[in-house]
């Protein structure tokens, strides 16, 4: 199943410097890079940042094949973005936008591939604890982030399955035949995930649950 193998949310056990780096530092790095891309105006700078992310990926020994797969997943969508932005804004901004998106994807993967999900959840819960005064439930926030991470590969995989199904019926040029099944499948996935969490009593944390186990 193609959706299974999109590697964004799958932790890769290892002992590289990035695996050993503190979770908070890695998280901060991803946030700063994500925000920093808004300020990148030159396509050369965007490509350089992407190259740096690829270099970090290599030094974390996460594998060239995994990197290629990571880049190939959103390629159809980003190709469309590239063409559209080229037409609207010209080649330099188009290359810059796509390189920035790719840099963010690789940066996010450096976090998720080198930190197991339970550690990420615990990290988010700790970081969000001060927000409790504002009514934010840290456990629920962590769960939302974990489920979002889990959903991205699923939805990318659904795009690819639906594209194949449309192709098999000769409907590859019909945008409706490609978009609607992805939408329906994503909503159904969200409902199933919600049911699965509710069935295990996750997500409905009350004050006593906050005290328990942490």
């Amino acid at each position: 199943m193609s959706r299974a193998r999109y590697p964004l949310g799958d932790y890769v056990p290892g002992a590289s410097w990035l695996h050993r780096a503190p979770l908070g530092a890695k998280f901060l790095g991803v946030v700063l890079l994500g925000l920093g891309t808004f300020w990148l105006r030159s396509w050369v700078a965007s490509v350089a940042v992407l190259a740096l992310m690829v270099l970090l990926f290599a030094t974390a020994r996460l594998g060239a094949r995994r990197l290629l797969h990571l880049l190939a997943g959103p390629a159809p969508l980003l190709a469309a973005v590239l063409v559209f932005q080229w037409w609207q804004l010209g080649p330099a901004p188009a290359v810059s936008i796509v390189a920035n998106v790719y840099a963010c994807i690789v940066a996010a993967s450096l976090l998720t591939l080198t930190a197991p999900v339970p550690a990420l959840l615990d990290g988010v819960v700790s970081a969000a604890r001060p927000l409790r005064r504002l009514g934010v439930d840290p456990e629920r926030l962590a769960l939302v982030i974990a489920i979002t991470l889990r959903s991205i590969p699923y939805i990318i995989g659904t795009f690819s399955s639906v594209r194949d199904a449309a192709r098999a019926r000769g409907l590859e040029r019909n945008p409706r035949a490609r978009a609607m099944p992805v939408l329906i499948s994503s909503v159904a996935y969200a409902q199933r995930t919600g049911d699965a969490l509710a069935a295990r009593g996750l997500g409905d944390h009350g004050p006593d649950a906050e005290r328990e186990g942490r």
Partner: protein
Amino acid sequence: MNTLELRDVVVRIPAEDERPARTILEVPRLSLGERRIGVLGANGSGKSTLLRLLNGLQEPSSGTVTVNGRDTRREGRAVRADVGFVFTDPLSQLVMPTGREDLELSLRRTVHRRDRRAHAEEILDRFGLLHLADQSVYELSGGERQLMALASVLAVEPRVLVLDEPSTLLDLRNRELLRRTLAGLPQQIVLATHDLELVLDLERVLVVEDARVVFDGGAADAVAHYRRLCLAERA
């Protein structure tokens, strides 16, 4: 033993546009106290709705469902802590990338974080799944996935286990593995299935047809009743 009670329960889908309201389950009175209970019924008969009522995933449109005296509508969280639910497709159940991570997710509410990993490993070992702990859930076989989903649910130590067609996606070998695993569990079990062999192990079996419980009795008689219903439909 636990007691699951349904009183004057009706589950309705409200009218929408030109589609009239529809009753998908109607149970005047039902009390489930046996250790091993089965639910047989055709697709769309209402058996999954009956199961989903038992841990509050589905609320009745009217009437009450209680588990050991707790109302599933008012005390849903407490009920869900007592009643574990296993879905037909384990991929719907396993929300984390690997089995270990999924088990640790189950344990978040009850086990301190420094003990979670060891606790998860202990459960995986009990189910013979420890060697698959870090494998992507998508790379597991159907049987391994279903056992992993079962382990994730049992990690929170529910008193009742509800399973919605747990063997539907399994081959014969994995069905047998699941059957043996279920037989060895101490929990009260309520399961819906099309697998007539699985049903024959159970103490009490309900047959659901057209949104009603039309038979309630021993396994052999229930299977015979269900066969008659299906054959009568064909004729």
